[in-house]
């Protein structure tokens, strides 16, 4: 790890490893051995990576609970929501992460890359809102939040109960930190976050090492509420958020590390190497004197050009970028 830089370099890029090993996404998700090989290939190709992530797969917990899903050449997507009723979610038995194949696979991946990569590993769990959305469907969850806030809170608490042992198992296997993935959180207004989601996130974060919260989409109006979330050390946010402006104008973010937020699609996937370099330099320049984690706003697209990833790493390592 380069301690001279005032930031760590941690692109969410593990899926690019599949390109390097010429393996399918499905094989990487289903086989810990294949996924470890892909991540190792990525780290060997880009040794400037300071923090290593496994593949970002938001379906692990839902698959562990039997939700239907499909692959179609990418990380799996939950395709149906069999738990329409909050009572059904209350009745779900908490899976033993070592017995559940999807969870056990990721525990094995985390342990192995922590052992061989000689870098800190940040693993992923899904947050309570996203798991609830997988189980019930977003529309049902939105209706529940609007019509029965107490039942909504109870569903979130049950989702924390389901996820927490898995998060602890990832930590035991060697994860230095765990990112709570909440792509569905952006649906809900900040008041819902404050009243119902934040307590659940705090409870989950308290059980995890170096917890981070990742939320996709435009979260500018949620930032103060995110900043007030206890136990969460790091906020991983999408490109809609101007980090420097947020740090300057939102006092609640004091003490939180920001992680991000080079656009994964519009710059990393669709941009030119020059556009990538320029975006990295601009972000790093705007965060002068502030510790942050240089990353992508979200998971990279598997067919992101490798020359763009090279441009990202070169710009991240360049002394001028950090000055």
């Amino acid at each position, binding site marked *: 790890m380069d301690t001279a830089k005032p930031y760590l370099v941690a692109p969410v890029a593990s899926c690019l490893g599949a390109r390097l090993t010429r393996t399918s996404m499905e094989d990487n998700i289903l086989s810990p051995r294949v996924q470890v090989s892909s991540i190792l290939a990525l780290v060997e190709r880009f040794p400037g990576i300071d923090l290593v992530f496994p593949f970002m797969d938001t379906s692990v917990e839902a698959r562990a609970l039997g939700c239907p899903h*499909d692959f*179609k*050449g*990418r990380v799996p*997507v939950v*395709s149906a929501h069999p738990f329409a009723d909050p009572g059904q979610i209350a009745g779900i038995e908490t899976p033993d992460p070592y017995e559940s194949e999807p969870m056990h696979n990721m525990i094995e991946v985390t342990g192995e890359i922590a052992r061989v990569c000689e870098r800190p590993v940040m693993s992923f769990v899904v947050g309570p809102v996203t798991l609830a959305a997988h189980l019930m469907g*977003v*529309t049902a969850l*939105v*209706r529940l*939040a*609007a*019509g029965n806030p107490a039942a909504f809170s109870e569903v979130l608490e049950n989702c924390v109960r389901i996820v927490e042992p898995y998060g602890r198992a990832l930590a035991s296997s060697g994860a230095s930190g765990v990112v709570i993935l909440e792509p569905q959180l*952006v*649906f*809900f*207004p900040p008041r*819902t976050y404050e009243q119902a989601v934040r307590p659940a996130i705090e409870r989950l974060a308290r059980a995890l090492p170096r917890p981070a919260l990742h939320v*996709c*989409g435009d979260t500018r*109006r949620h930032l103060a509420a995110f900043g007030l979330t206890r136990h969460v050390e790091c906020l991983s946010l999408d490109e809609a958020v101007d980090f420097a402006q947020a740090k300057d104008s939102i006092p609640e973010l004091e003490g939180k590390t920001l992680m991000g937020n080079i656009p*994964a*699609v*519009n710059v990393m*996937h*669709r941009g030119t190497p020059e556009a990538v370099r320029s975006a990295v330099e601009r972000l790093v320049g705007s965060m002068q004197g502030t510790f942050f984690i240089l990353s992508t706003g979200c998971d990279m*697209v*598997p*067919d992101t050009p490798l020359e763009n990833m090279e441009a990202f790493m070169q710009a991240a390592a360049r002394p001028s970028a950090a000055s």
Partner: protein
Amino acid sequence: MNDSLRLVCEAVDTLDIDGIRDLVQRCLEEGHTPEEIIEHGIGKGLDLVGKKFEAGEYFLADLVMAGEVVKEVMPVLKERMNPVDAPRRQKVILATVEGDIHEIGKNIVGIILSANGYEVVDLGVDVSAGRILQAVKETGAGIVGLSVLLSTMVGGIRTVVEEAKAHGIRDRIKIVIGGACTSRALCEEMGADAYGENAMDALRIVNGFSENA
């Protein structure tokens, strides 16, 4: 605006899913036609919801709820609509492209368009270009809305554009794209006709195409 219609508008605007049925029933009992209720009650309520969303006062969850509020009463209204009097605006085909199964954004667009008098043919998710073009031929729809959330699946847009050309119907249809990974630049790159940033934007675009048809 009549009091009862105004209350329907307010119920949509305030996302009152429990109150909307009775209010619509009252309008029908007072002799308002379904078309009047849709245009002056529901449609105006959705306009207000859209404005609040664009102003940052409402969030995606509120748009979903607004859709649910409208869904509560649309079957009753459609049942009573006289087909002769029904609005004769364009048919719009909506689909999430092949390989992508996300549907919430598409559904919200469908609700907003339906509530504004368009005949929406929703083909669902994970829809092949072939099926979309077959639906265009069968329905005579002039507008196709394609939704894509997964960036890995954006190629599905180009496939629809190219196959429409190959079938000789490209100049008969307007292709509008939307979804989390789409953008104006992507729209140009894929050869589509317009990019809708959100459901209200999609409505404006479709209104524009419809007026110029």
